[in-house]
């Protein structure tokens, strides 16, 4: 039993890591876009599990070990907060307003729209945390009774789509301040958006990163309130 656990853990965590390394290499050597490693990894792994007729639950039994570093990732965000503590002191008002308005809109509109489209209650709950960084979103989703695995997918789709939409908004309004540009991308598109913000300007990037991390913390702390509102 224990050896089985070890074996499946090593096999599927290892296979996932290997697929990721291969996908990154491929994306680099063919100079594909920023989202290519993720998409290639998913394609490779779904091909492997389909060919070997491995059901998802069996895959996840082994691969969930690979998700453990998400906890330490959350802790590591402390370094980016510390690096930008000056920015927090100067822009605390914009940070607070952006996070409250942004998170409120993200959660409220995800919930409302999902209800309007008559989606399954589990999907509705899993959509609510879609706008915050994954390590936070998974905890949040579990807290309010959603499905963390579905949330992971929604969070990623949000990152890709919202970065694209945010870029359009920013191009349409060339007079936006770096603060606003950063907040749009950090609040709307978390990690992928923060990457994009760094392309505009380091100032945009710093604020985007700060908004992303602080929104994640604020949301997770507010999770009991959200559960209470939903009940």
């Amino acid at each position: 039993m224990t050896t089985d656990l070890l074996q499946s853990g090593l096999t599927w965590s290892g296979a996932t890591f290997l697929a990721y390394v291969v996908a990154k290499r491929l994306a680099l050597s063919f100079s594909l876009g920023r989202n290519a490693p993720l998409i290639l990894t998913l394609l490779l792994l779904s091909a492997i599990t389909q060919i070997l007729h491995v059901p998802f639950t069996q895959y996840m039994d082994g691969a969930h070990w690979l998700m453990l570093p998400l906890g330490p990732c959350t802790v590591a965000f402390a370094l980016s907060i510390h690096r930008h503590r000056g920015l927090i002191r100067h822009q605390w008002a914009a940070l607070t307003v952006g996070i409250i308005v942004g998170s409120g809109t993200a959660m409220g509109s995800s919930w409302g729209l999902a209800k309007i489209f008559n989606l399954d209650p589990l999907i509705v709950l899993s959509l609510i945390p879609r706008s915050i960084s994954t390590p936070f979103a998974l905890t949040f989703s579990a807290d309010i009774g959603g499905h963390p695995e579905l949330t992971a997918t929604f969070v990623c789709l949000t990152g890709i789509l919202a970065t694209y939409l945010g870029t359009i908004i920013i191009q349409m309004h060339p007079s936006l301040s770096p603060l606003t540009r950063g907040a749009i991308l950090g609040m709307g598109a978390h990690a992928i958006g923060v990457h994009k913000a760094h392309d505009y300007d380091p100032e945009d990037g710093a604020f985007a990163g700060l908004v992303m991390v602080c929104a994640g913390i604020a949301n997770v702390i507010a999770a009991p309130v959200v559960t209470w509102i939903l009940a």
Partner: protein
Amino acid sequence: MNLTVLLQITFLTALWAVGEWIAKFWNSPVPGGVIGLFLLSSLLLSGWLAPSKLDRGSQWLLSEMLVFIVPSMLSILDHPEFLGLIGIKVLLVIVLSSLLTMGMTCLSIEMLVHLQNRSELKAHLKNDD
């Protein structure tokens, strides 16, 4: 990845474990990861720990974060229903809600900056009197 990076990651993991333990022990609504984040923030702020001591480990974790998320994203294979109408609805929710979120964030911060500039201007004018 070398030994330094590995040690730094081990330290971050230990902080996370302490956070988890505190969360369990006090039945805290704040999850262990966030408690660990606050613990590390206080260590950094108090000056007991230099950020440079953890820079490379945290950078490695955060830049490779994608691979830790991949397993749960593969759960989509278990949900063939997303290939149909439900999938389109979910995409619509994400697109519309993202537009609203970014639009509202944009408006609120631009308004705030505008207000701040106006009050600064007023203060200036007062000083000139």
